[in-house]
């Protein structure tokens, strides 16, 4: 009911033609951040588990990092699968681990869904649910490698800059699947996240059939008391593919401390631990106020350009309240500004009419971010619904770039030049000798088919997909091409955070060839390998792609595909989805047909249409 009332309040000013703020706004104060940390420290102290604790706001600004005396300075990355490749075995700074977990709680959540890093754990593994063999991989398989420190979209913290508090901020380790990252709410409004690491392991939970007593999670729960997610929107009230998601394995009844009786922050700071300075994330050892999401100061606000406000579209802005990623012409002579605007508007219309998969109450509309790129990976436009989870900002761009990249006849050459010829060879062994140079159109879902540790997905007896590591050396920390493309960026950034290097990772991920138009590789914020993006064609020629992220993957697929289709009809300029003969679902290696898009059945709130994507 709260969500429905909120939605009515959201739409009313639009219906009335007003320009009033359309998203309820709350933020964390310094005193509240201190209270959250103090309660977490109190629980950690009671458990004898000294912890590092981070608090962020909804757009990833680090509001405070506190390291208790005796807390481990580093955490070991491990999936528990005896894998030694990828990031497995690395020792990462505890502060980076805590920040990544806090960011995960904040970024995966919204005012309509509260997800934790335990939720993330459930949806990024080789089976969904984890350890349920003969099930497909997690629906957000690969999302852990988003919000990367090399992203050109996510913002870097720069002290004394007008953009100091603008989001979305990057994360030092991407998103986390290690329990102990939770969202924080005030008056039912998402205001940030808390991340805790006390066990010196940056890992995941492979067995979700039991209920763990995880010190990281319990300390985070204690910290969130008074700022806990509304019960009705928690992950354990939300199902995907008939499977209920997980929020936490324990609740406040399992705490051994009394949060309300926790000492004041002033009594613990300098006594039980100290506030930390984290290079690249804080302006010294300080605690700061959070930003209210939806205000210009947060980097997200209602559009005022006249292009999207009638659809309640939100845009990204910089610290001078100037729009970021306003629609523009392509750099390759393909899409025009008007066509980009038309594609984004048509996508927003689908989202506004669609029924959300991951939000409560039921029948709430879809909330997502939409990104359009050209064939060089240039961002041509970004727009959002008001309450899309923040993670979808970067991920929508990843999906768009991934679809454009793999559909480009230059994909094989780019990968080979970047040092990834082995992945080209394995793809060609499966799909044919000219694969990735033959002009087939790959949706993000098709790329995902090729990037799972089993092909086809779900059967542990199958060979790996050509973009994946073989299962014995696969884990969420060692995925294959996706990680290999950005591993050096992550390592260089962590060396910068620790002070081992004075040079941070460059803007623009991967070592793939630089594009003159952008000064960056085509996959400038990394490869994404789960559904929700399709290439866009103009007069039968690849012109770029659209990526969607923030709701269920079928909903994301539908907005990308149907939005492009509808835009093509409205624009009548040659813009369209890929010609049917070029789509990757014409490829059936070993008799297994690749998938292109999958749209939900009866997906609209006030419309009985059953299969809106069929035949298009």
């Amino acid at each position: 009911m709260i969500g429905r009332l909120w939605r009515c309040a959201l739409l009313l000013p639009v219906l009335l033609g007003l320009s009033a703020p359309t998203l309820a706004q709350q933020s964390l104060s310094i005193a509240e951040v201190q209270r959250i940390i103090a309660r977490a420290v109190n629980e950690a102290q009671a458990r004898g588990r000294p912890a590092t604790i981070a608090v962020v706001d909804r757009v990833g600004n680090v509001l405070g990092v506190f390291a208790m005396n005796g807390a481990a300075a580093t955490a070991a990355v491990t999936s528990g699968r005896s894998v030694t490749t990828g990031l497995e075995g690395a020792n990462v700074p505890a502060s980076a681990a805590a920040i990544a977990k806090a960011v995960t709680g904040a970024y995966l959540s919204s005012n309509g869904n509260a997800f934790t890093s335990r939720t993330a754990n459930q949806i990024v593994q080789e089976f969904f649910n984890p350890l349920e063999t003969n099930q497909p991989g997690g629906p957000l398989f690969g999302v852990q490698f988003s919000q990367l420190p090399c992203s050109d979209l996510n913002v870097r913290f720069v002290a004394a800059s007008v953009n100091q508090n603008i989001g979305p901020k990057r994360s030092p380790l991407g998103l986390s699947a290690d329990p102990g990252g939770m969202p924080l709410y005030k008056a039912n409004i998402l205001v940030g996240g808390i991340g805790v690491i006390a066990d010196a392991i940056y890992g995941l939970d492979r067995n979700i059939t039991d209920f763990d007593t995880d010190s990281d999670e319990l300390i985070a729960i204690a910290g969130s008391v008074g700022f806990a997610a509304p019960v009705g929107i928690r992950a354990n009230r939300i199902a995907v593919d008939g499977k209920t998601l997980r929020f936490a394995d324990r609740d406040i009844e399992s705490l051994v401390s009394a949060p309300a009786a926790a000492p004041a922050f002033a009594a613990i700071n300098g006594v039980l631990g100290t506030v930390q300075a984290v290079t690249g994330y804080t302006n010294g050892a300080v605690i700061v106020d959070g930003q209210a999401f939806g205000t210009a100061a947060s980097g997200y606000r209602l559009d005022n350009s006249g292009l999207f406000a009638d659809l309640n579209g939100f845009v990204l802005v910089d610290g001078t309240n100037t729009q970021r990623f306003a629609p523009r012409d392509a750099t390759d002579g393909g899409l025009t500004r008007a066509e980009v605007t038309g594609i984004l508007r048509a996508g927003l219309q689908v989202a506004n009419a669609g029924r959300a998969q991951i939000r409560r109450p039921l029948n709430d509309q879809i909330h997502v971010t939409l990104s359009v790129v050209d064939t060089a990976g240039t961002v041509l436009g970004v727009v959002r619904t008001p309450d899309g989870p923040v993670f979808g900002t970067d991920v929508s761009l990843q999906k768009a770039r991934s679809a454009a990249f793999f559909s480009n006849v230059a994909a094989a050459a780019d990968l080979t030049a970047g040092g990834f010829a082995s992945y080209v060879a394995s793809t060609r062994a499966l799909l044919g000798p000219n694969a990735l140079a033959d002009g087939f159109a790959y949706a993000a879902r098709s790329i995902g088919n090729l990037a799972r540790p089993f092909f086809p997905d779900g059967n542990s007896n199958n060979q790996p997909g050509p973009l994946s590591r073989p299962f014995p050396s696969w884990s969420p920390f060692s995925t294959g091409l996706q990680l290999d493309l950005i591993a050096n960026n992550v390592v260089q950034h962590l060396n910068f955070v620790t002070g081992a290097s004075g040079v941070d990772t460059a803007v623009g991920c991967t070592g793939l060839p630089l594009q003159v138009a952008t000064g960056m590789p085509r996959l400038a914020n990394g490869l994404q390998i789960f559904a929700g993006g399709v290439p866009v064609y103009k007069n039968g020629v690849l012109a770029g792609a659209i990526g969607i992220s923030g709701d269920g993957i079928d909903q994301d697929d539908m907005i990308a595909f149907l939005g492009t289709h509808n835009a093509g009809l409205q624009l009548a300029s040659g813009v369209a989805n890929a010609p049917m003969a070029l789509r990757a679902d014409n490829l059936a290696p070993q008799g297994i047909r690749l998938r292109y898009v999958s749209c939900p059945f009866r997906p609209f709130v006030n419309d009985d249409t059953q299969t809106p994507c069929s035949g298009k």
Partner: protein
Amino acid sequence: MNLARTTGLAGLGLLVALGAQAETLNSKGARLAPVKVPIAAANVGKTVELGGDVPTASHVMASMPDGRSLQRTNQGYWLPWDGTPASLIDNGFQPTGGLLTFKVLKEDLTQRFLPVTVTVAYRAGGQLKFGVFDVVPE
């Protein structure tokens, strides 16, 4: 910190000695060392070795974190750029002793997103050779 244990990753040795070598441009695009600046008074230039090339034109472009593509004029102004090499303006920088120095910007960057990604380029022998670096805060 034991990032060296990240076995299976190629190229971790690239993490040292950035910027220690002479920098050159090439037709596929070169990664150049970042330039650190005081953001309130940034003064950015870049010198590259020509390796025998004789530039016939020189260019400076920037990808802004707000999504805009800009190029520098020969008078030091920044204009929107459509991303195509054909529309690049010659900045007219002259080689000296086998080196070419690009003037990039001199301004207060506190109102800008950082890092700014800068591309420097010249035309020689019918090719556009370019390199990319980040302008980062000190």
